[in-house]
């Protein structure tokens, strides 16, 4: 029985959490000997035109994984955008508008037809839930569908069409207990449908902190942020809080930002904020090694690979307490602190900057948590078990 990941776009350097997850998981499962392939569209990525075929259709190979690309159909972008706007702003949509959403979403009739034709040859793993490739694909292979939803508490998850979708999959692969709790609160699920898997984390890298400091001319304690620098990641809050902290406590540490995207506010080195932009992968690992603390202020994380990587490097973390996923990781691992509001941010940062023994203990706890739960061999074994169950039934 072959395994096919179905995703709206696929490529070696497409940004995004779900996109990176499907790429890494497919590659690791393939390396572990599973017959994994990817079915996707010719669309380039999330930010491109979903009605435009960027890639050539057909079969190619990306990092050892066979990738089947199918052309997208015509879509009414204006109609989709009108409904999507309502969903993004939490407004109710009618059943007719839900139909517009799924029909004018990114999807490929040829991809859907391929799934239906080869229904009995594959176990299909769809990721994430809110795109047309998933909605129409699950419909075409009911009984053979596994879904990695990347679920958040959002308007899309409450659409009737997606409620029905969740009831039609054989297994739900979830990243965290918080996501599992959300799924159970939204949908009636049989006991054996949801499975807590998490994500695989690379644990074999070296994190050369001194090398990072030399290369970027950094000295003294570092509060590190790693990831996209936009409002969706709450980076503006981190900058505000850091500025206030520096005003109240003095120049006790620099805030160093690495990652792509445009900052929502202007910053400067004079105020202790260094925006290094997108850095090479090894520099990212070295940054974890140099960090006094990694701060993840995002409110919408499915798993937070950055947290895990920082822990592998032994860095303690500071997360936003209103993000159930990252807060849960900190509590389960005893590897980090969390804040809701500035007063807690200040108190946590004071502790982390003043107590090296506490930092070392938190970092060591986090590292142990990752090695015990999210090493690739552990995650691959979880996938094997799920695939055996679905294929064998």
């Amino acid at each position, binding site marked *: 029985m072959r395994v096919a990941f179905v995703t709206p776009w696929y490529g070696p350097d497409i940004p995004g959490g779900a996109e990176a997850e499907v790429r890494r998981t497919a590659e690791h499962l393939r390396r572990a000997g599973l017959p994994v392939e990817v079915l996707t569209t010719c669309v380039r990525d999330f930010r491109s035109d979903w009605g435009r075929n960027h890639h050539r259709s057909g079969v190619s190979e990306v990092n050892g994984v066979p990738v089947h690309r199918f052309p997208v159909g015509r879509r009414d972008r204006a109609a989709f955008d009108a409904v999507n706007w309502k969903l993004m702003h939490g407004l109710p949509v009618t059943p007719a508008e839900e139909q517009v959403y799924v029909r004018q979403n990114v999807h490929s009739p040829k991809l859907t037809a391929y799934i239906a034709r080869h229904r009995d040859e594959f176990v299909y793993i769809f990721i994430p839930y809110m795109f047309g490739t998933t909605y129409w694909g699950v419909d075409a292979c009911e009984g053979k569908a596994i879904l990695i939803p990347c679920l958040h508490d959002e308007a899309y998850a409450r659409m009737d069409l997606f409620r029905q979708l969740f009831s039609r999959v054989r297994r739900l692969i979830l990243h965290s207990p918080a996501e599992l709790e959300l799924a159970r609160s939204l949908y009636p699920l049989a006991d054996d449908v949801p499975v807590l898997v998490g994500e695989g984390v690379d644990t074999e890298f070296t994190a050369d902190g001194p090398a990072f400091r030399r290369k970027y001319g950094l000295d003294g304690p570092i509060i590190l942020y790693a990831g996209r620098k936009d409002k969706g990641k709450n980076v503006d809050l981190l900058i505000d809080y850091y500025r206030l902290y520096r005003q109240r406590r*003095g120049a*006790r540490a620099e805030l160093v930002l690495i990652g792509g995207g445009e900052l929502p506010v202007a910053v400067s080195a004079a105020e202790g904020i260094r925006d290094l932009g997108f850095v090479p992968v090894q520099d990212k690992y070295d940054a974890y090694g140099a960090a006094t603390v990694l701060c993840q202020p995002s409110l919408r994380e499915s798993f937070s690979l950055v947290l895990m990587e920082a822990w592998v490097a032994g860095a303690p973390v500071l997360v936003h307490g209103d993000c159930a996923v990252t807060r849960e990781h900190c509590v389960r691992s*005893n590897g*980090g602190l969390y804040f809701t509001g500035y*007063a807690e941010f200040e108190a946590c940062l004071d502790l982390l900057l003043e107590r090296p*023994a506490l930092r070392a*203990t938190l970092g060591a706890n986090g590292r142990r948590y990752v090695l015990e739960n999210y090493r690739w061999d552990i995650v691959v074994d979880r996938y094997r078990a799920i695939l055996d169950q679905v294929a064998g039934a």
Partner: protein
Amino acid sequence: MSDWLQIDEEGEVDVEEIMRQIKAHIAQRKVAREEGGDWSTLPRLEGRFSRAVYDELAQAMRENDRVYAALLLTPSRLPVVGRMVDALRRKAHGLVIFYVNQVVDRQVAFNHYIIRAFTALLEDLERDDVAGAGAPARQGKEEPLGEEPDRPGES
């Protein structure tokens, strides 16, 4: 500056316990600032009361931040099973400390209000003393009591 946190940093750290102490510490500072009895200052008018009264009150305030039970364990010297014994002892002690600190929370709150009551009493007596003597209110030198964590640049 963060010595109000009472934990064994090199042992089994409990993040929820740390967060609980952080919240309690913030709540104490907030009450002190918001309800008019700012802990950080107390008029030190000279005359009516001895310096000892003010010094003891300041010390009580400082100690109130440090009453939480901390883990204190000496490593076992038993060969072979020593580490396992240490781990078991640490767990047992941690459980006791969890419950003890819940009681301590309530004691800290009580202490807090008692100290505030004494402070208010002192202020009233000072004020009455000055008014009764018919003298214009003296501008006493206000000195901070205990820590002032809000000073920029202090580590």
